[in-house]
């Protein structure tokens, strides 16, 4: 052995040398290394600092449970904190940085915390930092926050892409060790559609790490042959680098595949990670078992690691953890490590097996690297690494994600998975079967969907026996239970003494199990120490709750492509292109993009909207109203259906006419409004507000299907089938007349509220409605969606001689406020028909949704806030939406609150600010001067309550 890289062996490619750096220092490794194995091969063990005491920490494990060796990788928007060095596949040019240290990993000022560690016991935060009161936020907390946390996250956008996928299979096998492979072979040979997923880059699980013998060949060769067979079968999907992170209802599994984390940057056409929801008819948990640390003094000094990890580094990566090793074990794993190390040429100085000796390790010597151990009999043994094994814990996590608790098994000294039914079964060492032969047999059993379980190959079994040793109580050094969070063995009895006896309370009080490894290594030890301190058994103490995510999952993977501008879909109206050509500014309205105003050179929104209003009210304007919900209702019972849905009556509406309708919720509050047209005896077209289109449709479906299933009526949303435009203003009729084919638009043949199919532009079938939101003589023209922009352009051309002006939702809103029409600000889900001044619409002659509950005292109270007009007392003054209304003489207080301003506009017609407001008993207060409290914008002005109709109260223009 030269250095710490073994001369031969390992699954590394010694012909491909990779350069990488750690904290700026350059090293080399080989293809097949992890960052951790490459650092070990370079004799670097100090890889991180702990959370609270900033103690020097080295790598403990060789897998995803690693709590210590967390590094930051990459730069800029790709910077990623807290990455486990044990899971990072080495690539050329990799640059890793250590975390939670200042100024450097080797010299960390934060380590002074260790000096006060006698005071910083579990829960000390809760007992102090309370005096003086203001110091918590000003002094203590900022200090604590700066010291806490691990790595730094980026604040830039991530340039990489992520995908979401769905997969379906008959059998999902999680874990590709001997159990998983045997299950996969069995199922695949029977033609079952399987997915085999494993978190590692290479499939094979423990067979890649251990010296085993199966079917007279090495475990590795057997695994490679099995994988090659699986790869050749069409019913098999292999998913390496894929962590199944959670089990959800319906046997749905969440999985993340690290598609490109093993390269510096993904190729432009590939995602960094892919999140898959796997729908499995059945699943096998073949996740193996996790080796536990022993809790003894100095068990965190760099160079102390799990025995299985140490032999994995030697066997798989040809990296020696040291030159001279001491093994500390309570089971047969220790011996196995010793023999593998010896075979690899590493010197094993001593094996301390707690089953054979009473003189256990009480302290590990060395600060940033092990220099020796001290035994209970004061004997010192020099060494540079310690392999520890406290027994094995079946990896039961996934099976406990839906609430079932694992059970304590005394014979293996571990928690085994609960029975959760046949759709998800545990197998192999995950089920507590610790011998290889048992794993193969169990895998075959789990992989058999029906019929007889096939025979499995013969193999050599390593002995498995364990006698629990949880905590070397005589330890002189600090003995850690949870490495990352610096929870020590003494913290748990302290928590119990203070009343935090339940494991869940103890966890929260000591933070044991709350680090980024979620207690994978430390929890069973914590449970045992708590059991001992409180005189309970392991079962009585029980585990904390296992929850997703098995290992942490990036936000990016779970968000997939639905980020930034793609967070939600964009809905564009059939008139979008037309509006875009005219330079419209668009605004988000739910998912819609609506044309908001059409600025001419240099205009701001107010100038543009003002011009649009003036042009419309004096000539003619055109506006895209396609976003209104449109529902086509047909059938013999259509009239009855509408009568029940709306509070006003539709049975009296003549064919060819439109009527404004008001819909209540069943609780008597206004739900929605809009015009409904009767196109034929049994055919209606309803419109809804833009915001409520989907909800109204769902409401109709509910009422019909759940309440009145025998009504013979059909209805469908046709919102997206029609482009609809309002053409409003004194010249609207003249404009439209030019494109309408066969009718004269006079008041006789097409009166106010007429609604009829028409032919336009020489034969296009359209619908024309003489309805008005602006208060002008106006029409809405609906055309098949694909013709929307084309027709809008034609209308523009027809109206050119009248100075036709496109207007957007800002002008629309100004005009509706001038006319006192209610909209979103007033239809806010808390107002009644009476509040809106529409109480007379509520029929007394029929049943309808909301009729009964609208009669409640609270909804009839004359002091309810109702819609009024509001204007500034000083006509030059401004009013703003959201201001509250107070009696003129009252000081500002909640008790004096009379209501608030719900909508405001600068009225080009009145040349002043006007608005609508909801004011207590407002209808009887027209003319009253009130105080307008807008404290949040530091203004207090006066206003006058008035009729909500600010403009053309006689509707002269509407009927002109």
């Amino acid at each position, binding site marked *: 052995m030269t250095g710490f890289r073994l001369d031969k062996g390992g699954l590394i490619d010694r012909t491909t040398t990779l350069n990488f750096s750690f904290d700026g220092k350059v090293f080399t490794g080989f293809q097949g290394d992890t960052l951790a194995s490459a650092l070990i091969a370079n004799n670097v063990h100090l890889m991180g600092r702990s959370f609270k005491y900033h103690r020097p920490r080295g790598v403990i494990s060789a897998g995803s449970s690693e709590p210590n060796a967390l590094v930051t990788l990459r730069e800029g928007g790709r910077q990623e904190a807290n990455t486990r060095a044990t899971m990072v596949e080495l690539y050329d040019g990799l640059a890793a940085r250590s975390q939670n240290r200042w100024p450097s990993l080797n010299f960390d000022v934060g380590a002074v915390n260790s000096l006060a560690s006698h005071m910083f016991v579990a829960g000390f935060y809760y007992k102090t930092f309370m005096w003086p009161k203001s110091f918590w936020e000003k002094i203590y907390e900022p200090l604590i926050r700066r010291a806490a946390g691990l790595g730094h996250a980026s604040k830039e956008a991530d340039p990489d892409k992520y995908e979401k996928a769905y997969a379906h299979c008959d059998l999902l096998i999680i874990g590709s060790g001997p159990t998983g492979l045997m299950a996969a072979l069995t199922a695949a040979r029977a033609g079952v559609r399987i997915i085999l997923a494993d978190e590692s880059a290479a499939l094979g699980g423990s067979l890649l790490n251990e010296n085993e013998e199966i079917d007279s060949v090495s475990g590795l060769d057997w695994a490679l042959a099995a994988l090659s067979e699986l790869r050749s079968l069409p019913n098999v999907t292999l998913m390496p680098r894929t962590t199944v992170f959670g089990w959800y209802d319906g046997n749905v599994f969440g999985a993340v595949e690290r598609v490109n984390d093993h390269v510096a940057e993904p190729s432009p056409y590939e995602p960094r990670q892919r999140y898959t929801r796997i729908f499995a008819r059945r699943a096998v948990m073949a996740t193996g078992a996790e080796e536990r640390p022993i809790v003894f003094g100095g068990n965190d000094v760099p160079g102390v690691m799990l025995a299985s990890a140490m032999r994995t580094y030697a066997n798989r990566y040809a990296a020696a953890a040291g030159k001279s090793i001491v093994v500390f074990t309570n089971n047969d794993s220790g011996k196995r490590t010793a023999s593998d190390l010896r075979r690899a040429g590493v010197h094993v100085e001593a094996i301390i097996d707690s089953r054979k000796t009473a003189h256990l390790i009480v302290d590990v010597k060395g600060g940033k690297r092990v220099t020796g151990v001290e035994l209970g009999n004061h004997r010192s043994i020099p060494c540079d690494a310690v392999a520890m094994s406290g027994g094995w814990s079946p990896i039961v996590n996934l099976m406990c994600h839906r609430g079932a608790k694992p059970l304590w098994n005394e014979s293996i000294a571990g928690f085994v998975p609960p029975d959760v039914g046949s759709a998800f079964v545990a197998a192999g060492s995950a089920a507590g079967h610790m011998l290889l032969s048992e794993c193969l047999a169990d895998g075959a059993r789990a992989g058999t969907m029906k019929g007889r379980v096939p025979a499995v190959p013969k193999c050599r079994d390593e002995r498995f026996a364990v006698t629990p040793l949880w905590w070397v109580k005589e330890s002189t050094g600090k003995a850690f239970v949870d490495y990352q969070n610096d929870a020590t063995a003494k913290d748990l009895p302290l928590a119990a003494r203070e009343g935090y006896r339940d494991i869940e309370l103890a966890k929260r009080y000591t933070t044991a199990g709350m680090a980024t490894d979620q207690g994978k290594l430390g929890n069973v030890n914590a449970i045992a120490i708590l059991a001992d301190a409180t005189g309970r058994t392991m079962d009585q103490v029980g585990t904390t709750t296992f929850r997703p995510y098995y290992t942490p999952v990036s936000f990016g993977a779970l968000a997939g492509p639905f980020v930034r501008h793609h967070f939600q879909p964009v809905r564009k109206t059939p008139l979008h292109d037309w509006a875009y050509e005219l330079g419209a500014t668009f605004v988000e309205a739910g998912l819609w993009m609506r044309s908001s105003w059409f600025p001419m050179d240099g205009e701001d929104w107010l100038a543009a909207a003002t011009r649009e209003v003036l042009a419309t009210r004096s000539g003619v304007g055109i506006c895209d109203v396609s976003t209104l919900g449109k529902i086509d209702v047909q059938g013999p019972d259509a009239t009855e259906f509408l009568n029940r849905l709306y509070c006003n009556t539709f049975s009296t509406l003549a064919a060819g006419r439109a009527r404004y309708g008001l819909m209540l919720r069943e609780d008597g509050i206004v739900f929605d409004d809009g015009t409904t047209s009767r196109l034929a005896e049994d055919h209606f077209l309803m419109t809804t507000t833009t915001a409520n289109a989907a909800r109204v449709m769902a409401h109709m*479906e509910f009422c019909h299907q759940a309440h009145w299933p025998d009504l013979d009526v059909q209805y469908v949303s046709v919102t997206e089938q029609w482009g609809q435009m309002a053409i409003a203003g004194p010249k609207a009729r003249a404009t439209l007349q030019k494109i309408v084919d066969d009718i004269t638009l006079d008041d006789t043949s097409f009166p106010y509220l007429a609604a009829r199919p028409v032919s336009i532009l020489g034969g296009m079938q359209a619908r024309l409605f003489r309805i008005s939101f602006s208060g002008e003589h106006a029409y809405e023209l609906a055309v098949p969606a694909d013709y929307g922009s084309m027709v809008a352009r034609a209308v523009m051309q027809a109206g050119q001689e009248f100075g036709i002006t496109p207007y957007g939702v800002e002008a629309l809103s100004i005009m509706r406020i001038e006319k006192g029409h209610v909209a979103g600000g007033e239809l806010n889900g808390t107002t009644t028909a009476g509040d809106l001044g529409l109480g007379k619409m509520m029929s007394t002659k029929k049943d309808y949704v909301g009729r009964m509950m609208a009669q409640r005292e609270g909804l009839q109270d004359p002091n309810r806030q109702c819609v009024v007009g509001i204007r500034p007392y000083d006509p030059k003054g401004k009013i703003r939406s959201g201001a509250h209304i107070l009696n003129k003489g009252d000081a500002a207080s909640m008790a004096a609150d009379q209501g608030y301003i719900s909508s405001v506009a600068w009225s080009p017609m009145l040349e002043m600010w006007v608005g609508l407001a909801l004011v207590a008993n407002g209808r009887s207060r027209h003319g009253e001067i009130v105080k307008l409290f807008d404290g949040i914008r530091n203004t207090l002005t006066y206003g006058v309550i008035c009729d909500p109709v600010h403009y053309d109260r006689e509707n002269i223009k509407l009927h002109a």
Partner: protein
Amino acid sequence: MLINCPHCGTRPIEEFTFNGDASPQRPQSQDMNAWYDYIYLRHNPKGRFDEYAHHSSGCRAWLVVTRDTQTHEVFAAVTAKDYARERGTP
């Protein structure tokens, strides 16, 4: 959670919109107490539960799904129409 829609087959939950307890029936009477019960009071058991679910991203049928509120096991799904017809008017 997967729901077996009578029209569409087994579909994932995100296709459905839930509307709670299916047991209250719209009263025929004008008794305000009956209306209060109908609008506001809910059967809210821990265990087996009949609830309205709208297949809003599917066939648009309202269903009555029988489900365990603790285990989320789905036992059955029928259309709200059939459910309404079967139980008749209150």
